[in-house]
């Protein structure tokens, strides 16, 4: 008997014009770990909600078809019956924890199913042990990190002793360290042989070794691919690219290599496998170079790269004189400079004094764990937080002296949630708003708005309400509105958060183009693969201190520093390492 079975499931939310699920058929066998992929908006979360009976039980809409989980028909079973068979973990740690203390949270579900306190005690202890939270049993939830909260959410469903676990993008809000820890727990749960796991994720590289099945939910609301990872990623590659889903790095690399004439035998899913497979091919210098070149992605030699290539090879640390900071600033204009002085007089300020220079035309990534001070630093840069005079300089002038109006014309800041930035009810007004302070003629405003709409692929939505756009479109609109006044420095807070691969890639390419046309880009991100591919420089923060600023390449050479900052190597760099080791 399959642990999960869906037969011709259709569901349309009440009031929606077309169904989000339209004839889904799938089976997941007991103790399998299956990955569910799909573009954003494809209906993955709705599918997850079908598995514990919230659809059709609790969410209004039109439902049709049969869902059987652990032998129960979800339409016939009660919520309580399902809750002890299916555990759901959601994306946002804040919105799924109900109580104020760790112990209470784990007890919550057990109390609902009316267990005796002695039994609860046993289960709480076990669930906390499984998730590595035993030491935090009596802690307050608001003192936990995002990763700990997510582990707690997992613990609170594990305590219900379900046989099926469904996790809906559980690491989306976590930093690399939190993600690694959660995945490690999932690996152990899988190894225990007690759980059938359905995982909705797009950080695939770390999951390949523990995935038995891959299911792809297509845009049409139907399963577009189903099979072992190798089958799906290699036989239906083009289809998946078409769908816009995230793909494992090794798979993308293999396809790129094949296109360039390097035959990769077999179907590798991880870079370790790729390297092993390549060993079988006579690895000539030429092939190796080709592989390395392909692995590095389409990173272009941009203006900033050229500018800083004059730098001495710099083992860039902050105390080293020859770091990226100190690069011959005489030749390259410094857009933004932070001088090593206290940001505020406030004793418990997050950031410690640091010296940081952002050169014109640079593509800088701010990285570090959640809470390290990345957003705080970015907010100082645009004066949302006021630093003392003499700390931050924009174009050589103290930020404290810049009038707010002028500043918004120089720096654009794209927030993580694009909705927060909308100030009008029409897409085109949204863009025109940014031109207000320039006092342009109406024709000029219209022309500029038109150009921006074209450039960001929003022309069809000029009259739409910003709130009605899709997630990717909202993001594009908020970015466009931050560029329209001619801002030359653009700061983006987690720009690819919640985006599917197609949208994310498109956005990053736009950023690269902007950089090439003379803009300076600063991004805050956890996605090391993306940083390796696009960013020229990286600044690493740890507990409010700047512990590294230099070229991205050099950051990846410093493993102890990465470990200290809770960061990891992206697969492209890992591949390069392994490959070099093989060839020596």
């Amino acid at each position, binding site marked *: 008997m399959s642990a999960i079975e869906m037969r011709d499931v259709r569901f349309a939310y009440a009031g929606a014009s077309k169904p989000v699920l339209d004839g889904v058929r799938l089976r997941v066998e007991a103790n399998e770990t299956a990955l569910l992929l799909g573009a954003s908006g494809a209906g993955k979360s709705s599918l997850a*909600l079908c598995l*514990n009976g*919230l659809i059709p039980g*609790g969410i209004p809409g039109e439902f049709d078809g049969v869902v059987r989980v652990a032998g129960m028909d979800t339409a016939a079973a*009660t*919520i*309580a019956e399902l*809750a*002890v068979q299916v*555990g*759901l973990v*959601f994306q*946002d740690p*804040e*919105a*799924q*924890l*109900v*109580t*104020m*203390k760790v*112990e*209470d949270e784990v*007890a*919550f*579900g*057990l*109390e*609902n*199913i*009316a*267990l*005796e*306190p002695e039994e*609860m005690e046993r289960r709480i202890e076990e669930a906390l042990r499984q998730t590595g939270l035993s030491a935090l049993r009596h802690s307050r939830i*608001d003192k936990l990190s995002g990763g700990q909260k997510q582990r707690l*959410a997992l613990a*609170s*469903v594990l305590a*219900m002793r379900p046989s099926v676990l469904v996790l809906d993008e559980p690491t989306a809000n976590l930093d690399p360290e939190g993600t690694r820890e959660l995945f490690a727990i999932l690996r152990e749960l899988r190894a225990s042989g007690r759980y059938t796991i359905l995982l909705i994720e797009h950080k695939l590289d770390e999951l390949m070794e523990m995935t038995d099945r891959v299911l792809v939910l297509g845009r049409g609301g139907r399963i577009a691919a189903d099979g072992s990872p190798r089958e799906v990623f290699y036989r239906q590659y083009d289809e998946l690219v078409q769908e816009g889903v995230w793909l494992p790095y090794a798979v993308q690399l293999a396809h790129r290599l094949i296109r360039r004439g390097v035959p990769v035998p077999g179907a590798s899913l991880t870079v370790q496998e790729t390297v092993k497979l390549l060993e079988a091919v006579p690895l000539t210098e030429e092939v190796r170079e080709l592989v390395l070149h392909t692995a590095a992605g389409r990173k272009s030699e941009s203006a900033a790269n050229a500018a800083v290539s004059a730098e001495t090879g710099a083992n860039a640390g902050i105390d080293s004189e020859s770091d990226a900071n100190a690069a011959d600033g005489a030749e390259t204009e410094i857009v933004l400079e932070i001088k090593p002085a206290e940001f505020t007089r406030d004793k418990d300020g997050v950031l410690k004094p640091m010296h940081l220079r952002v050169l014109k035309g640079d593509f800088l990534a701010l990285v570090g764990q959640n809470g390290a001070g990345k957003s705080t630093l970015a*907010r100082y840069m*645009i004066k*949302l937080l006021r630093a003392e005079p003499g700390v931050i300089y924009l174009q050589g002038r103290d930020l404290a002296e810049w009038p*707010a*109006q002028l500043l*918004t014309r120089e720096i*654009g800041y794209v*927030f993580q*949630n694009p*909705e*927060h*930035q*909308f*100030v009008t009810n029409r897409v085109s007004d949204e863009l025109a*708003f*940014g031109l207000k*302070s320039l006092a342009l003629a109406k024709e000029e405003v219209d022309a500029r708005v038109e150009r921006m709409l074209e450039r960001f692929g929003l022309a069809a939505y000029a009259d739409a309400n910003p*709130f009605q756009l899709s997630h990717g479109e909202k993001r594009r609109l908020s970015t466009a*509105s*931050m560029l329209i006044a001619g801002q030359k420095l653009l700061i983006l807070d987690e720009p690819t958060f919640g985006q599917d691969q197609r949208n994310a890639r498109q956005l990053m390419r736009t950023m690269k183009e902007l950089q090439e046309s003379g803009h300076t880009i600063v991004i805050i991100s956890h996605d090391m693969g993306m940083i390796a591919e696009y960013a020229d420089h990286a600044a690493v923060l740890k507990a409010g201190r700047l512990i590294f600023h230099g070229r991205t390449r050099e950051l990846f050479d410093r493993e102890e520093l990465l470990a200290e900052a809770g960061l990891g190597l992206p697969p492209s760099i890992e591949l390069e390492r392994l490959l070099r080791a093989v060839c020596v």
Partner: protein
Amino acid sequence: MSCLHRLNPLAKLLAIGPPALFLALTTNVWTPLLYITLTIGVTLTLGNIPASRYFRVCAPMLLVVLGFVLVYPFLVSGRVNEGSELWLDLGFAKVYEAGFLFGLATGLRLLAMLVLSLLFTLTTDTTDFIRALIQQWKVSYRFGFGALAVLRFVPLLKNQFQLVRMAHQVRGYTGKGSRKILERTQRYALPLLSASLRHAERMAYSMDSRAFGAYRNRTYLRRSAMAGRDYVFIGAFWIGAAAAALVLSRFGLLGKLSLLKTYH
């Protein structure tokens, strides 16, 4: 954990209830003053609260008391001031001793109420309180957990609000000017409302998928019940409050008791 923290939340509520009601009846300065002193003493010693923290919480209320003292003498009706000593003659208005004392008494009465409630709020965990309400006073658990969810959401909403304000600021949207209040409210409300709805929906999913509301009765990991020390505390607190009132009346300082004090 101090003695007060360990007490059942409902015991503390029961203890402060009658003295608070009695305070509402008093009209003079001495009763609230004595109650304030005694309650602060109990809170600081049995509750192990640092005096500095206590003062920080109280400070805004002290300003309110001061406000009453400054404003009341000008507002009270002639009946209150009748036969009272004239303290200050500003020409357009006169300040009598009785009017001043009346303002002071009102301010102190409010402060005394606050001080009593602080004994409860400073030493009680919200979860414990809600748990006790559900288990002992049979408040519906759906309501209890609803309240808890709202409390959890308040800091998140505050955070969201700050984000929205910053995001608007970056766009050069100030929304300044009194005529723009409506527009500004709408602009802030939209993203906040959408975030709140989303949050509420997700919270409901998370609760439902852990069988919330499956049965009419829940069990509880931690039982909430009155213990011997709770009854002792309630009794002692009541006796203390009554004794204070008796002492005051013996020295003729209790003053007139009255529910309605509007002499305007």
